[in-house]
């Protein structure tokens, strides 16, 4: 059976059917994204923090905008190619469009990756330190005196993964076997003593007999003491602990370790010091953490420079009421563009691409005490509502880019032969796909300024 009105117009609508279909679909897409843009407005108005501006990588966003605009031109050219019966023009333009779609997604991948690997630490006074964590992440180092297993959910394979030799007492984050290189102990190599003096390990068989013995004695937990001193070196992201204190660690399976916290310091390679939310930037906790007084000095110089600029361009205005000034002056970028930051950076080269993923920099490494931290996280939806709406809208948009690329790839592979047999039908298909593609471009035209620039 032949499907009617794929090429000729239906008399009552005056349009071929797929065109009506795609426009109805686009109308519903307008509603979908419209709802999300509306949420954006509400989240922005309700934000109780400084809404990030120029915090995403503007160069990458700008590049991706150009990629989408370029592909919008090529898809319409591909359509024109069919209409003009020029196969080469059709084929190459459609192919370039598809490649642009995948280029866009690759750039987006690197942008997401950068956010997942970047951390923000809110200090107790509201100052925010931004930076990267060492490869092994943020870890608590804890020396164990006793381990209490709760048989209901106890899973030695999970918590024993963090067992190491005991830490030197004043080791801090930089003890002799700190970091990723900390050798974990094999589960069968750690011997424990039960309360009645028996020696056992937590390897599967031993654990099962411990469990059976406890069941016989009608107990649901057992307290073990390590025969040789051991420690736990626990990664905090993803969340591995239910709770902790100076004297205890509680794992998610209900296992409680008693002992002593050796180090709960976070190591961070700082790239931004944001003092906007601190009551007084000069007394921010960041300066004690940064140790080297040179950073405060560089911050002061950069701030003075911005103040001078502000007074020249807005005479009589209060700088503390200008978001622009606050962002420039109180949010200090270690690799910023101001001469002061540049100098503080020990005259390291600051090229045009200094903020790109492949650029390597030396960032000052600091140790932050757990007691000074209000909260910390990487830049995922849990950091703030801005990142929540950022990932929601760009994720949905990315899904559209992928879908569009697959549809166009289908046309290229399976429908190209129509160029000879049924070119008008092919032209209509490309036009339908193109309309969707322009819509995807159109959403991005708003997303780019709203999320990256404004």
């Amino acid at each position, binding site marked *: 059976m032949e499907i009617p009105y794929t090429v000729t117009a239906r008399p009552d609508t005056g*349009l071929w059917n797929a065109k009506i279909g795609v426009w109805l679909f686009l109308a519903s897409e307008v509603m979908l994204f419209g709802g999300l843009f509306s949420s954006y407005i*509400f989240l922005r108005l309700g934000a*109780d923090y400084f809404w990030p501006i120029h915090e995403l990588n503007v160069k990458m966003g*700008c590049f991706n905008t150009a990629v989408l605009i370029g592909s*919008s031109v090529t898809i319409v050219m591909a359509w024109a190619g069919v*209409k003009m019966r020029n196969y080469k023009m059709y084929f190459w333009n459609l192919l370039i469009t598809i490649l642009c779609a995948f280029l866009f997604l690759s750039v987006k991948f690197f942008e997401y990756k950068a956010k997942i690997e970047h951390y923000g630490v809110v200090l107790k006074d509201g100052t925010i330190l931004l930076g990267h964590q060492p490869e092994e992440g943020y870890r608590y180092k804890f020396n164990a005196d006793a381990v209490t297993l709760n048989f209901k959910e106890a899973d030695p394979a999970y918590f024993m993964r963090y067992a190491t030799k005991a830490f030197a007492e004043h080791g801090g984050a930089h003890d002799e076997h700190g970091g990723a290189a900390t050798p974990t102990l094999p589960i069968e190599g750690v011997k424990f003593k039960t309360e009645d003096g028996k020696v056992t390990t937590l390897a599967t068989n031993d654990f099962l007999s411990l469990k059976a013995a406890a069941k016989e004695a009608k107990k649901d937990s057992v307290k073990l003491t390590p025969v040789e001193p051991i420690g736990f070196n626990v990664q905090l992201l993803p969340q591995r602990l239910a709770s902790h204190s100076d004297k205890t660690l509680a794992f998610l399976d209900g296992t409680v370790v008693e002992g002593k916290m050796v180090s709960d310091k976070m190591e961070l390679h700082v790239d931004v010091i944001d003092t906007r939310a601190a009551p007084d930037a000069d007394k921010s906790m960041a300066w004690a953490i940064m140790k080297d007084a040179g950073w405060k000095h560089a911050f002061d110089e950069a701030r003075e420079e911005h103040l001078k600029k502000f007074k020249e361009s807005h005479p009589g205005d209060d700088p503390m009421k200008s978001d622009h000034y606050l962002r420039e002056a109180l949010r200090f970028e270690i690799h910023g563009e101001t001469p002061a930051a540049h100098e503080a950076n020990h005259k390291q080269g600051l090229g045009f691409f200094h903020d790109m993923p492949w650029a390597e920099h030396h960032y000052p490494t600091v140790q932050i005490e757990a007691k000074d931290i209000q909260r910390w996280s990487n830049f995922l939806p849990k950091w703030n509502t801005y990142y929540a709406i950022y990932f929601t809208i760009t994720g949905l948009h990315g899904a559209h880019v992928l879908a569009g690329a697959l549809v166009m790839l289908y046309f290229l592979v399976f429908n190209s032969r129509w160029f000879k047999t049924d070119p008008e039908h092919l032209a209509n298909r490309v036009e339908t796909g193109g309309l969707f593609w322009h819509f995807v471009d159109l959403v991005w035209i708003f997303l780019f300024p709203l999320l990256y620039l*404004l």
Partner: protein
Amino acid sequence: MANSPEEVAKHVKTYLKVGIALLFLTAVTVWLSYVDFGTHSRNMTIGLAVATFKTSLVVLIFMHMNHERPLIYKFMLFSMLLLGVMFTLFVFVRDDGLLLKGYEAVFGKH
């Protein structure tokens, strides 16, 4: 709507020009976002005005909305009306203590 090969050939140059204009306007948007216009809502207005202009170029030229059948305009009219409603819902935050602070920061006290 009649898209004869000759007519399409005439449009090809227009498509290229629009593409270049869109790239240029993207650069303008980025540049303007670094200019301090005094208040941030001014930056917002200017930036979104440029984005709206870019969008209309795409819709009118690339999506051929400058010469389309009436039925499609009717569809989009409904869409735009509902979109307008969604984008003006925020005026009600004046009655919401939680959101009011942000509202005043953007639009000023009244």
